[in-house]
């Protein structure tokens, strides 16, 4: 594997469970050194994709390359170079959290003791408690410390912060930024949009087992609409606004959304009338996300 071989490269991945198609031709590329957000609601296929990458599930069709190897055939070798945190960390009732962290670290091939102590401190986790005594959030911390204390070059995080409180979420984000500075690659599956917005260089949005968008947040924003609210010198009746949607006019005030590539043209039209004030807001990730799931939401509402 050369320096710019993508650590994860998946194309046309298909995986069915009985009649359900969990993955239906998924494409996903994660570049070296980036934090890649893997977005989608529950059941979109995020965990299935990660488990195929881990060699826990065998794909029915398509190709998947992980760190230059075959995730199914070379699983054991590849796992030395990655660390994984599942969305629901389950522990053995009679093993302490510290024991599980050490065990997972050793089975991966080594653990940085100083880093472990540091992370336990930052996540405020008592490693002496037994597995059954931990709350959901604390179980999750055990998994996070075990993964972050490794010196893996790739981190696969599957909704790792479920159950963490906002303070710990902050600590987690700080840790991920440190990982990126250290040159590690991170695949972060999540449905917490603020987390993805805060951390990720690039994002892939997955829906029903297919990637529907992929790119940097800026690129994705470019593909969608910007909201404009303008107060004009005169009522804008009858003027042509190419690429504008949901236009509402109230006297000399106009509100609309515009396809971002058309923004320039539309602004020229407005300035010809005369602009007194202007508010322009780029789409939030939430809007991006909801646009792809709108029909599903409608179906659910029905």
């Amino acid at each position, binding site marked *: 594997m050369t320096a710019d071989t993508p650590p994860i490269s998946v194309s046309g991945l298909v995986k069915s469970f009985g009649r359900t198609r969990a993955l239906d031709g998924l494409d996903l590329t994660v570049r070296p050194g980036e934090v890649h957000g893997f977005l989608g609601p529950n059941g979109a296929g995020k965990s*299935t994709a990660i488990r195929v990458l881990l060699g826990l599930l065998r794909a029915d069709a398509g190709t998947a390359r992980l760190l230059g190897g075959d995730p199914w055939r070379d699983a054991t070798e590849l796992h030395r170079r990655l660390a994984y945190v599942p969305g629901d960390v389950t522990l053995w009732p009679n093993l302490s959290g510290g024991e599980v962290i050490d065990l997972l670290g050793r089975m991966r091939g080594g653990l940085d003791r100083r880093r472990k102590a540091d992370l336990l401190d930052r996540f405020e986790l008592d490693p002496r408690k037994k597995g059954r005594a931990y709350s959901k959030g604390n179980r999750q911390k055990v998994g996070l410390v075990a993964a972050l204390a490794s010196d893996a070059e790739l981190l696969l995080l599957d909704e790792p912060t479920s159950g963490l409180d906002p303070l710990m979420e902050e600590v987690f984000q700080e840790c991920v930024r440190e990982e990126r500075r250290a040159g590690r690659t991170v695949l972060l599956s999540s449905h917490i949009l603020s987390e993805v917005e805060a951390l990720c260089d690039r994002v892939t949005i997955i829906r029903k087992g297919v990637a529907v968008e992929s790119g940097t947040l800026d690129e994705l924003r470019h593909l969608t609409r910007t909201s404009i609210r303008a107060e004009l010198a005169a009522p804008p009746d009858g003027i042509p606004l190419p690429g504008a949607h949901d236009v509402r006019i109230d006297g000399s005030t106009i509100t609309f959304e515009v396809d971002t590539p058309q923004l320039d043209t539309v602004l020229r039209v407005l300035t010809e009338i005369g602009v007194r004030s202007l508010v322009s807001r780029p789409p939030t990730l939430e809007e991006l996300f909801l646009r792809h799931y709108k029909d599903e939401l409608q179906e659910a509402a029905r």
Partner: protein
Amino acid sequence: MSGASRGVRRAVPPRMAGVSALTGTGGLVRLILRRDRILLPAWVLWIAVIPLGFVGATDSLYPEAADRLQYAHTTGTNPTFLALYGPMYGTDLGSIIAQRSGFVPVVIGLISALTVVRHTRTEEEAGRRELLGATVAGRGAGLAAALVVTMGANLAVAALLTAGLAAQGLPVAGSLAFGLQMAAGGCVFAAVAGVTAQLSEGAGAARGTAIAALGAAFAVRMAADVGGAGNSLSWLGWLSPLGWGNRLRAFGGERWWTLALVAALVAALVAAAGALSARRDVGAGVLPPGLGPADATARLSGPFGLAWRLQSRSLYGWLAGFAALGVVYGAVAGGVLDMVKDNPDLAEIFTRLGGQTAIVDAYFASVMGMVGLIASAYAVSTALRLRTEEAAQRAEPLLATATGRLRWASGHLLFTLLGPVAALTVAGLAAGVAHGLDTGDPGREVPRVLGAALAQLPAVWLVGAIALALFGLAPGLTGGAWAAVAGCALITLFGAALGLDQWALDLSPFTHIPKLPGRSFALAPVLWLLAIAAALSAAGLAGFRRRDLATR
């Protein structure tokens, strides 16, 4: 009643007045009855049927008063019987039944303790108690409901036994005393479990402590009774609630006042459990949860270290059980000759069971088949640990490390392979030594009996390999491995009695085990069993390497 006092009463808000610690007990009782609608009647009937079945069997084996008198002087005073069952207090049919049922209070005590923990601490651990605690249920309601149901079931056992024995012509007073003796064992250990369920956070610890108390009570009663009624250690029996049961002397001049001891102990334990439960938080124990080490020892660094950590405790428990079983079987061997001397029918049964004419050899061949069956249950439980770990999603993070599937599996499978070796060795040695001390020639008996135990290994491994094959090839059907154990048990225990055809008997691997120590060792069937076990294991492991891991 004066108007003023009525006014005072009204001052209590009506909603508060209705809520006590026991509010909602009735609803929870119905919930438990609903959940256990099959389990509860099943064990009540099972417990009742065993002693009732003894009546007919004993009556036909010892029809005349003279036979029963002879039984009382031979088998009835055999030290093994005395230790296991307690003394006989009379020479009539009822006294024989009462003695032969001497182990039933231990069984009913065990079931009762497990039932109480199941409906108290297990519920809390699973978080379901919290759900109910948020409704209108007093904080003592869960405990009260579990005790009411369990003790009610025990009284149902007593009623069934009293009616069933009296209907078969036994004295009514004795039948009632006998029924209450059995129920007393259950009620005491239900109350004991009510206390232990308050102590620790884990249901496992609550069960363990209750079972330890039961074991201690049994050990004390054994020590008190092994010398027979009225021996110099007999007073020890008053220290054990199980000893009180015997000393009620059903059918032997009942001493009803011993029931007052039982009632007082049950009342004290229930009060203690109630007080403890009122003082602690839901989900917490009275004893603080133990903390573990902050770092793993060097031993816990891979699949083998983990499997050892997860399975060694249970192995020790099984080994203790096998040792006890071995001692009992070995010690009873001498008594087999006594029993058979009295009774030609029994002699015939044993020769048929063991397929042998030398009675003691046949006896060992037959009991070691039994020990082998139990070992195969252990082997299945160790192999299916793989499935438990996988289904609980605990295998997934391990397999996401640099640990291959086969290496992970082999940690647990080591117990399937070597656990039965240890178990059968322990049982064989214990039985051999116990029997050898009895005959005065341990040098001859130990290797013979140990050999008979170890001869079971190929069949035990084969049953374990069935579990492994199912795990690898059809993980949804791993319960089939328990069906295999049950099938083997059916064939071994009742095959001959049911008059099954040879091909049906041949289905059980245990049928093909050489009947040591009496007969010579035949190599060919053993090699066949080993080959089939190896093939099943290989198929299971290959299947596991190829298939998807179970996911949620």
